[in-house]
C-alpha cells in the first residue's frame, strides 16, 4: 500500500517536473522568437501574411516541443522529435513555395530565392531526423538490455 502510494507520488513529481521543463522550453523558444521578430518586424510590414506564417510555425513547433518534453523518457519523445523535423521541412517547402517566394504589389513583382536557405534547413532537419532515429534505436536497445538484466 505504502509502495503504491510512493509510486504514485513519484509519477506525479515526474510529470510535474516534465511539465515545468516543457513550459520553460516553450517560454524560452517563444522568447527567442519574440526577440528575433523585433528585427523582422520592419520587413513583415512589406510582406503581407509573413507574420501569420511565422506565428503558425511557432505555435505548432512549441506544441511539438511541449508534447515531446511531456513524453520524455519514452519512445514517443523521439517520435515527436521526428515529427518536429519533418514538420520544419514540410512547412518551409509549403510556405516558401519550393524556395521561390513571390509577392506582387500593383504592377511590381518581388521575388526572393530562398532555395539555398531551404536546402540548408532541409539538411539540418534531416540531420535532426537521423538523430531522433538514432536516439529511438538507442532507447529501445538500452531498454532491452535493462529488461534482460
Amino acid at each position, binding site marked *: 500500500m505504502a509502495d503504491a502510494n510512493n509510486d504514485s507520488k513519484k509519477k506525479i513529481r515526474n510529470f510535474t517536473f516534465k511539465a515545468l521543463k516543457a513550459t520553460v522550453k516553450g517560454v524560452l523558444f517563444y522568447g527567442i522568437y519574440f526577440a528575433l521578430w523585433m528585427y*523582422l518586424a520592419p520587413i513583415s510590414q512589406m510582406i503581407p501574411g509573413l507574420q501569420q506564417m511565422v506565428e503558425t510555425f511557432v505555435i505548432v513547433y512549441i506544441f511539438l516541443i511541449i508534447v515531446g518534453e511531456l513524453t520524455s523518457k519514452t519512445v514517443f519523445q523521439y517520435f515527436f522529435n521526428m515529427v518536429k523535423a519533418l514538420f520544419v521541412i514540410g512547412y518551409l517547402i509549403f510556405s516558401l513555395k519550393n524556395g521561390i517566394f513571390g509577392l506582387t504589389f500593383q*504592377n511590381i*513583382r*518581388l*521575388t526572393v*530565392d530562398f532555395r539555398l536557405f531551404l536546402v*540548408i534547413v532541409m539538411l539540418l532537419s534531416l*540531420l535532426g531526423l537521423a538523430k531522433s532515429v*538514432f536516439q529511438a534505436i*538507442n532507447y529501445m536497445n538500452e531498454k532491452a538490455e535493462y529488461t534482460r538484466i
Partner: protein
Amino acid sequence: MRIPIRMIDIATTFFWTFLIAFSVSAVYSVKDIHFDFGQPQIEVTPDNKIIFSQLMSITNKGFYNIGSFNISTEVADKEGFTITRGFTFTLVINKNDTVTVTHNMTIDINDLLQQNKNYLFNDTELKIYEKVGLSIAEVIPVQGSANFSMPWGAPLYNFTLGNAEYTPYNLTHLKVVVPISFENHAFFDLVGKIQIQMYNSINIVVGKGQTNVEAHHNSPYNGHLEFYISIGGITAIGHFEVYFLTTLFNYGPLVIPYG
C-alpha cells in the same frame, strides 16, 4: 551510440543557431539599403543616337555586402518588338559603402525607323519592362520587376504639305511655294532640313528644293518651301517625295500625291 548522437546534437545546434542568426540579420539588413535616383538625362551622341541615362546611388548600411546588383530595362512597342535594352551590373556593394551607377539605354532612331515609320508620324505608347536584382549577403537573390508604359511623341506628328502655289518666275519657270506643317510631340528638338522633289505624272523630276527646319519639342511648326520648276514638265497630277535630314535621323522618301 551516445557519442555520435551527442556529436550530431552539438553540430545541429551550432548550425541552427548560425543559420537563424544569419538569416535574421540578413533580412534585417534589407531595411538599411537605400536607393537614390537622380534626374534622368537624355543626350545625343555624335553618331546620332539617343542615350537615356539614369544615375542611381545605392547605400549599403547593412551587416553584409550586396552581391550581383543588376538593373535591366527593355523597351518594346505595342506589338512586343524590342526597341532597346539596357543592362547595368555591379559585382559587389560592400557594407557601409555607397556605389553610384549609371544605367544607360541607347536608341538609334534610324534603326527604329527601319522597323516602323509610324514612330515619326504617330504618337504611340512604349512598354517598359524594368528588372532590378541583387543578392542579400551575396547569397539570397532578390529580384523586383515592373511593367509600365511610356508615351512616345512623334516628331513629325500630323505632317502635311499644303496646296502648292504656283507663280510665274520667268518665261520658262514657275516658282512653287509648298506650305509645310507638323507638330513636334517628341522629347527632343527637331533640327535639320526637309527636301522635296516634285515629280510629274510620268515620274520625271520637275523641281526640287529644301528648307531648314527647327521645331522645338512639344511645339507646332508652320513653314514653307520654295523651289522652281520648268513650265514644260508640269502636269496636273503627280507626287512629292519628301526627305527629312535631321541631326537625329534621316528618313525618306515620304510620297505625297498632288493634283
